[in-house]
């Protein structure tokens, strides 16, 4: 199958599978059963649509397959079967159905890896095999995570309902974390690693869905803006051989200026609510880069200020590291190195710490220490594109 056809298929599944799951869980009242039926329907679609073409009404098609399969499978479970038998197309969707589904998949009583796998499978309609390929883990690992998660949902009585308002805020925070993880995981993919590339698409789609479900939530708008700003630069981030092009060297004419303008407008609307948060701030930082005509005109003072705010709201060594990187352009490499060295112990196992130290040491003329830091960075990254980048730098110097 060609790439566009595969993307079209993925889009159709993503658009409809989650909706169907949301309806079925509500009607059958059993998360695991509903999820199985949808997954079966998705697998059938993936076999037949490439041959027969995507049907005119993919939603009705998936519904019919899931319902018939359910009536067949549930012969012995009278209760579920009776509910399913009463179902007729078109089913009525309730606006809260998908929000309920997504906060259930990201329930804090489930381990993070299971939240990610469940969300991709149930909300985005990915198959277990697709998730495994995207995360470079064995299919059996993903299958086990999903089975355990579904068992816990049933056995520990994790409810399928929207929590009260005060809890809903923190539950939506869990969903944002999952989407952010997908973005991170997909972000560093190389051009030839098509499955990770899709994770960014899934993150973008999920962020848009969540924003549609809770339009007044500024942090969700901030996350959506963040995903879109990253995606707007995708075309310039890799060479045709799949090598990373660092920000300073990217061809900015390849950036999607329309997408950047839309994302910054979205971010400005969110900021108008005067409830800043980590996602809005991160998006604002990326927006500073996206709006700069070239590397030299980057507003580093503003970026350092945004990192200060981010450190205040969500202090972490990684944020401090990034602040250190920005500090190089406002206060120089010596000040930046001093900042970075304050978190050297915390981030000893983090390749970006060593890669950054290498750059700063090189700028300060300490070639030997720079090379040692680069080697340490290289030993710590598994991402092929990053390895290539670091390897090249070792060879140049």
């Amino acid at each position, binding site marked *: 199958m060609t790439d566009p056809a595969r993307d079209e298929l993925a889009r159709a599944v993503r658009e409809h599978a989650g909706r169907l799951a949301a309806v079925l869980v509500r009607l059958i009242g059993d998360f695991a059963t509903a999820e199985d039926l949808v997954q079966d329907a998705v697998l059938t679609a993936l076999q037949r649509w490439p041959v027969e073409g995507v049907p005119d009404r993919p939603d009705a098609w998936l519904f019919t397959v899931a319902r018939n399969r359910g009536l067949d499978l549930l012969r012995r479970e009278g209760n579920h079967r009776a509910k399913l038998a009463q179902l007729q197309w078109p089913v009525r969707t309730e606006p809260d159905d998908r929000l309920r589904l997504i906060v259930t998949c990201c329930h804090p009583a489930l381990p993070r890896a299971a939240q990610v796998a469940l969300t991709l499978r149930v909300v985005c309609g990915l198959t277990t095999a697709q998730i495994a390929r995207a995360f470079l883990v064995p299919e059996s690992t993903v299958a086990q995570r999903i089975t355990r998660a579904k068992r816990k949902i049933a056995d*520990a009585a994790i409810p399928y309902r929207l929590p009260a308002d005060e809890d809903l805020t923190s539950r939506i925070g869990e969903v944002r974390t999952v989407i952010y993880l997908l973005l991170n995981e997909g972000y560093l993919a190389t051009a030839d690693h098509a499955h990770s590339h899709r994770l960014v698409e899934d993150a973008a789609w999920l962020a848009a869905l969540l924003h549609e479900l809770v339009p007044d939530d500024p942090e969700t708008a901030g996350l959506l803006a963040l995903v879109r700003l990253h995606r707007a630069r995708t075309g310039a981030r890799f060479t045709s051989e799949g090598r990373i092009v660092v920000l300073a060297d990217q061809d900015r004419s390849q950036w999607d200026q329309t997408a950047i303008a839309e994302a910054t407008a979205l971010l400005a609307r969110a900021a108008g609510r005067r409830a800043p948060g980590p996602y809005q701030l991160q998006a604002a930082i990326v927006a500073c880069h996206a709006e700069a005509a070239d590397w030299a005109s980057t507003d580093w003072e503003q970026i350092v200020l945004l990192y200060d705010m981010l450190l205040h709201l969500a202090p972490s060594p990684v944020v401090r590291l990034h602040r250190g990187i920005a500090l190089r352009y406002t206060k120089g490499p010596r000040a930046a190195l001093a900042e970075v060295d304050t978190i050297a112990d915390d981030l000893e196992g983090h390749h970006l710490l060593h890669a950054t130290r290498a750059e700063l040491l090189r700028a300060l003329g300490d070639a030997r220490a720079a090379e040692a830091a680069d080697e340490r960075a290289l030993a710590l990254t598994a991402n092929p594109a990053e390895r290539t980048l670091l390897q090249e730098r070792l060879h140049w110097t």
Partner: protein
Amino acid sequence: MKYVLMFVETEQYAAELEAMAPDDRDRAYALVGRWMDEHADKIREHRKLMPAHTATTVRLDRATPVVTDGPFVEGKEVVSGFVEVDVADLDEALGMARSWPGCPTVEIRPLES
């Protein structure tokens, strides 16, 4: 749905409680008492265990049973008490656990029906 909320104490928590002025300790106990009252309609049973130094463990996985002093997990965290609750679902049990004013960790386990 029935759950047990197991209250888990750390050495540090026990030491802090020990070091409190009597008035402060009374206040801490009063908070726990108020929590019990607030959730009285959901609590079926509540028990406080004697401290960990009173524990004895019997291991039956060898040729003859082995009796040792102390709790079964050697560590800084020990179960110090529990309540059995009857609530709608895990979210309701989580809500109770979140407002628990005592020791620093609570484990929630559903009871087999």
